[in-house]
């Protein structure tokens, strides 16, 4: 038994798994770009990529428009949202040392929904993403501020103030929905979450915030590992606990709020994916985090592809698929892994 050998073996294993997942994601993106109301072959999709990236001439204008303008940005958005929600889930589950926590726990989804509903009611529908983003950040900041006590934020208080904030804002959303009956469906569809009609501008709008949020979390992976021992022990190992908690919360809120701004509140991804990956990798966040990003991306690209093809030409909100497919699969895994 050699510690060095064991650690190397472990690291090599997870690098290999990460690479495989990345390959799966690429292939999935290509397949997703091929399927839809207009069926394309993988070769045609490949030609479009070649012409767009490598500048190789390609004759098929229609395929170019369908793949590059309609499908690819939406697929990429789904991938990034999946990664962002999962990454935020990892951060918050680690912060709360509770694997039942999801990125919306601190009222982020209700805050975003409130912002979005407000934008609809004020007839500023084109500002929904901005309103949703600000609403989500505002709700999380509110929950954090309310939980403060003598310069510290005990996680139990944070959880409770998040629940309170969330339920208060949900009530406000209901009032707005009742007030504007004719906009009910817009708000409702947005709440279910969907990538329908999203293109490059939406993607580039939210991408920087997601990236900033995820990088913030990435810089705190060591802290997440120390937090496994409890906050007091983490502090005694040299960690500035309150600072790390603030950064983790900030990173998670940014990533999740940007996701919600891009696609509405998609349920279940941020809860299930980190949980599922943890069953495989254990709690070491240096492996758990990157693998969760990849798995989240794969999961949501898959879900969105199903959402737009299963009842074509009708598109289902992707949130329905994530819950409908995700929940039973999750339960199955829980029961199968229950003996662990």
């Amino acid at each position, binding site marked *: 038994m050699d*510690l*060095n050998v064991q650690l190397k073996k472990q690291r090599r294993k997870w690098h290999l798994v990460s690479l495989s997942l990345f390959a799966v994601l690429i292939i999935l993106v290509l397949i997703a770009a091929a399927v839809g109301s207009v069926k394309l072959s993988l070769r045609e999709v490949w030609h479009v990529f070649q012409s767009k990236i490598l500048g190789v001439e390609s004759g098929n204008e229609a395929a170019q428009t369908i793949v590059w303008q309609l499908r690819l940005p939406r697929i990429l958005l789904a991938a990034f949202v999946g990664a962002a929600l999962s990454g935020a889930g990892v951060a918050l589950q680690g912060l709360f040392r509770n694997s039942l926590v999801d990125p919306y726990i601190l009222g982020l989804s209700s805050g975003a929904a409130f912002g979005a509903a407000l934008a609809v009611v004020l007839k500023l529908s084109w500002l929904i993403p901005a309103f949703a983003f600000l609403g989500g950040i505002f709700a999380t900041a509110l929950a954090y501020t309310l939980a403060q006590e003598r310069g510290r934020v005990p996680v139990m208080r944070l959880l409770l103030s998040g629940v309170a904030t969330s339920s208060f804002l949900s009530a406000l959303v209901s009032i707005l929905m009742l007030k504007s009956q004719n906009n009910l469906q817009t708000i409702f569809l947005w709440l279910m979450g969907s990538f329908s009609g999203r293109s490059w501008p939406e993607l580039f709008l939210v991408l920087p915030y997601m990236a900033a949020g995820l990088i913030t979390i990435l810089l705190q992976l060591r802290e997440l590992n*120390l937090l496994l021992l409890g906050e007091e022990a983490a502090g005694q190992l040299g960690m500035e606990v309150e600072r790390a908690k603030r950064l983790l919360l900030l990173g998670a809120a940014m990533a999740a709020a940007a996701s919600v701004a891009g696609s509405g509140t998609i349920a279940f991804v941020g809860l299930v994916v980190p949980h599922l990956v943890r069953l495989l990798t*254990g*709690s070491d966040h240096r492996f758990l985090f990157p693998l969760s990003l990849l798995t989240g991306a794969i999961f949501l690209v898959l879900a969105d592809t199903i959402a737009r093809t299963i009842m074509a030409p009708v598109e289902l909100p992707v949130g329905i698929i994530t819950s409908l497919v995700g929940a039973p699969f999750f339960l199955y895994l829980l029961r199968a892994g229950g003996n662990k």
Partner: protein
Amino acid sequence: MTVIFNVQGLTFAYDKAAILEDLHLEIGKGVFLGIIGPNGSGKSTLLRLLSKALAPLGGVIEFKGTFLDRWQRAELAKQLAVMGQESPQGLDLTASQVVLLGRAPHQSRFGSESSRDLQVVEECMRITHTWDYAFRPFYQLSGGEQQRVMLARALAQEPEVLLLDEPTAHLDLNYQLEFFSLIKYLVAQGKLTAIAVLHDLNLAASFCDQLVLLSEGSVLAAGAPEEVLTAELIEKAYGVKVQVGANPLTGRPQLSPLPLAKEKRSLRVHVIGGGGAAAKLYYPLVQAGFTVTTGVLNQGDTDWQIAKNLGLELVEIPAFSPISQAAHEENLALIKKAQAVVLAAVPFGPGNLENLKAASSIDKQALFLLSDRPLSERDYTGGIASKLYEELMGRGQVVTEEELFALLREQSVADEESMR
């Protein structure tokens, strides 16, 4: 003596009620210091303050000459490690991964484990006997195994000072001893200063170089175990009367709590003992609430030692000397005052035959003859004792220990009722 911790006027409260009040303490380098005191005396709070997990409300703590609040946590963690009472729950890491977390203070943010880190981890796991399950998941380990892994984790910090809060709460006896032996060894090697909150006073007495006795949030006594573990101080702190003896192996102080009678009974019991035959009776008799007297005992006899420790009224004679007339009469006087007389299974020789005769002086008292060993096995008088004993059997009851207590209890209840 180099001072590691200098605590002056320390005050702390969680809410309004003060936990620590104006506490002063100096802790020197290279000692194994035990913090003892009753529940709620502030032991664990003091430890958390020393580790900077809590900030004092008043007063100052200096660590190695610098105020604790001026220490960067990251720097502090290189010199000070803490092992808490509880192990983290449901930790999905292997034991060696947990111990590796102890290297965090010595690692840069993104650097992976250096070969030195791995070397320290392995060494710490070997000396704590946790290396055998280095690659098993932490949550699958037993409570005791988890605690030893947590010790390895704390040692992996390579600290100068180790704070321990009830570290052996989940360990069974052999691991408890092994645990403290290891700490003591590391301290003796000059590698470590250990400060431990301990519940078990005898454990504290046998392993610690120095003890601090806390009571109601301040230091009641500090110093060598012999100076701190006195009957007076323990009674003051814990409200319990103890007998302080010497540990038969280490010579360190050893405490035994004196019996606490749940209810006082009016019955007076005189025990005729000697040769260690009555030793086991005294404690339960006192605990049952009876007033116990005994005699005639040779000084140095086990019965004499225990009766003395329990503070019983007794008739004593010098070691190896026969019962004098005066002692015999004193004994008779005690028998006269008693309502029940117990004759333990004493071996009789010419020197203590008087004790057997004393038993036959009973008048209205109940006489109980303990049946542990037949007299024939303990008659060294050539039959004189046996004759006297036979006569006594006609006047009293031969009983087992169990029957004795039942009968005494019955008698005392009857007596108390008739007195009413």
